[in-house]
């Protein structure tokens, strides 16, 4: 976001307060400064030249999930997420990175450190794979934070990443075959999700050369890495022209919403827009009419956790409900709480660990209270965080990706 765009966004914000009503942190902390409007005002004041005591700004802007709910609710279409990412970047440049993120940079620039941390954390197989995880990846962003807090769950990294096994080097000429964007958490940590995802995508190709969507870097204010991830993905996927299915809501948001903003006004703008226009949520491939209903996971009660980053797609959300109702009938537990944020927020989970954990554990406790056995969702961040929260709080609630329970069999009519 360049300066002109920042100023335009600041001007567009009417300070109406509508975003207060949807912000998970305003609800949690009951403070204006936790929400978008308070942050917009602080950016405005920074723009006008007021100096803040060193250190105050970074913790202030860290306190945001970058969940994008405020953007979706905003009547004036203020691009708050971009404003806040930009503010983080500005602060990182000026005042040094806050501890958690400095550790990240060290890890990503000196892979040796990351290995040793992972190895220390008791995961020997991790070592070989960490080398291959793109440095923009959210996995890297999390690892440094294992250092201070002992109680963290580290997913056991599987032997081989999904793309190692199933990735296809994308040659020109694949034309309009559907493509799969894996996302790095699914690719490296939960490849089984992708194995299930492709069952729903006939003939889909997962391009081997794809990289992290760049959201973790963007959220950490590390614009350079965010740009390089975006450029690489756009160029790889431009070798084909088919729809690009994305199983993770956070990647989806980044590829669809953030990329065009990154390149707005640049020579890559058109290419970025064309790329984004091809991005589809994997849920689109799970159209209810394609399945025979009922009988799935007999006796099990499920709930849908609505990822914040899926908010931009209200039709997809209602489609998921229709599908789950068809499959599970009254074993689908529905309520307002479906919409409660899990509190992950990527870098937020590092910088504001206590709040993040509290929100996740509360969601799990609610699910348990309502007799839910499995929470279904479609965001790698939510899955990771909710699993950790379930393990911590000891409730026997499982967390799975939608594609893992929805049967792929077509109805023959």
């Amino acid at each position, binding site marked *: 976001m360049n300066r002109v765009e920042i100023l335009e966004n600041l*001007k*567009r914000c*009417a*300070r*109406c*307060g*509508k975003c*207060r*009503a949807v912000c998970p942190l305003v609800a949690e902390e*009951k*403070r*204006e*400064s936790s929400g978008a*409007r*308070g*942050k917009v*005002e*602080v950016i405005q*004041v920074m723009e006008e030249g*007021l100096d*803040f*005591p060193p250190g*105050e*700004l970074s913790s*202030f802007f860290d306190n945001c999930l970058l969940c994008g709910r405020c953007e979706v609710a905003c*009547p*004036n*279409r203020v691009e708050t997420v971009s404003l806040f990412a930009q503010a983080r970047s500005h602060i990182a440049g000026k005042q040094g990175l806050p501890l958690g993120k400095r550790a990240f940079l060290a890890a990503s620039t000196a892979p040796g450190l990351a290995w040793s941390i992972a190895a220390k954390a008791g995961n020997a197989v991790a070592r070989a794979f960490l080398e291959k995880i793109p440095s923009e990846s959210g996995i890297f962003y999390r690892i440094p934070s294992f250092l201070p807090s002992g109680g963290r769950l580290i997913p056991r990294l599987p032997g081989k990443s999904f793309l190692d096994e199933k990735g296809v080097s994308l040659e020109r000429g694949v034309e309009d075959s559907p493509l799969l964007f894996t996302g790095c958490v699914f690719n490296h940590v939960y490849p089984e999700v992708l194995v299930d995802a492709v069952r729903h995508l006939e003939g889909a190709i997962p391009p081997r050369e794809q990289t992290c969507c760049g959201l973790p870097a963007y959220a950490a204010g590390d614009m350079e890495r965010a740009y390089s991830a975006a450029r690489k993905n756009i160029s790889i996927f431009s070798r084909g022209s088919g729809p690009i299915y994305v199983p993770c809501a956070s990647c989806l948001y980044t590829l669809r919403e953030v990329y065009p903003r990154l390149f707005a006004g640049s020579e890559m703008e058109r290419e970025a827009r064309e790329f984004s226009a091809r991005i589809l949520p994997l849920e689109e491939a799970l159209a209810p009419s394609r399945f025979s209903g009922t009988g799935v996971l007999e006796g099990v009660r499920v709930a849908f956790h609505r990822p914040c980053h899926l908010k931009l797609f209200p039709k997809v959300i209602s489609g998921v409900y229709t599908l789950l109702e068809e499959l599970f009938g009254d074993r689908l537990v529905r309520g307002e709480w479906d919409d409660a944020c899990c509190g992950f927020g990527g870098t937020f989970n590092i910088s504001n660990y206590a709040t993040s954990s509290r929100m996740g554990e509360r969601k799990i406790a609610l699910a348990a209270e309502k007799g839910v056995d499995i929470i279904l969702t479609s965001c790698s961040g939510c899955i990771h965080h909710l699993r950790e929260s379930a393990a911590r709080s000891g409730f026997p609630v499982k967390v799975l990706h939608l594609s893992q329970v929805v049967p792929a069999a077509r109805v023959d009519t």
Partner: protein
Amino acid sequence: MSSLERRIRDIFGERCSFSLTERVAYSFDATRQRAIPDCVVFPENADEVGELFRVARESRIPVVPRGAGSGFSGGTVPVSGGVVVSFERMDRILDIDEVNLVARVEPGVVLGNLQSAVESMGLFYPPDPSSRDFCTIGGNIAECAGGPSGFKYGVTKDYVLALDNVLPSGEFLRTGVETVKGVVGYNLTSLIVGSEGTLTVVTGATLKLLPKPEHVETLLIGFRSTEEACRGVNEIIRKKVVPRTIELIDSTAVECVREFSPVDIPDGAGAFLLIDVDGFESDVKAQVRRVKEAVTSLPVVSLQVEEDPDGRESLWALRRAISPSLLKVNPTKINEDITVPRARLPEVMRRVRELSEETGIPIVNFGHAGDGNVHVNIMIDGDDPAQVKKAEEVLREIFALTVSVGGTISGEHGVGISKKPYIGMELSPRQIEVMKRLKRLFDPDNILNPHKIFPD
């Protein structure tokens, strides 16, 4: 740490902030005016507010109450610094009494949360400002907020039975009754409702509830022009029907939403009335018939009735699409909420249109036509001093016209700092003097939300 800071920390512990970021976050409201306070505190009970006043009085520092900061008149902007008292943490609904039909709440309760809670019990709290999802009851009481349903059900003042207050001396004052009636002594509760947080700080309220109307239907009626729509309002009222709402969407507003409209805008429709009727189902059907009859004397362009929630919602989406679409006209919106006797509405709207044509400044009007309350939005580029000056002249003329037909320059947003320069156009010097004496009586040291309402 100054001794003042220490004393405030002694009262509030962790629940106060002196950091610049936090103070900036509490420096403004929806008018975008800004003044940075010295500190923000988050009380959890009235005692803490009382103690704060004792400190503030000794040190002569201003105390400014704040709900959600969604005010449209700068009421919570701490113009001379001091302590902003945020009620975000006093947000409990203490009791909903189904027999006495009252709710007891803390001031920081978000209006929409109260409404959902009472509606889930088959009850109804009617005041419905469009900010319902985020504004607080404390702010509603201070501004006497209203909304579309005001036509049938009145505004906040009609639902406040009793208040728990803290006086600027730090003493507690309970006002009002818990009953439907009560005439012992002066009605201090009505004095405090609408006093814009300048007389007392409200720390609790007992609110009147109604049974929730069983059935609601929505009509969207298209007219050729704004004036004809306004005549439509009067025809409906002449037929002795009282819809819950009669909202006007004028021709300029229609133009703004035409492109993005969630519903089809028929050719030739220059203005709309959006009408909700409620009650028992059979009664609603009869009312809808009456409304239709009432408007047949006018050249109606379109008429649509919806009764299921989704259909109704799609009609209301038209109304809600207006506000954000205004930015397409011009970047700065001067949003006024004049209210006139409704019989005078057609002529007032005509003059507003002429003013817009004469000056070339777009003026978009919509709002609660049933109440004669219209949101007049003067759209300019605030960075252009010539336009700002012209808008100021237009504004003065609209206010003068409003007062001359027996109206008021603010139906629901309050004076705050935004309308301070204009109150003399409506109030006599004697009225202002009596009000200032009242202010001195409540707040002799002028520490509670100073420099608001009255020109200094």
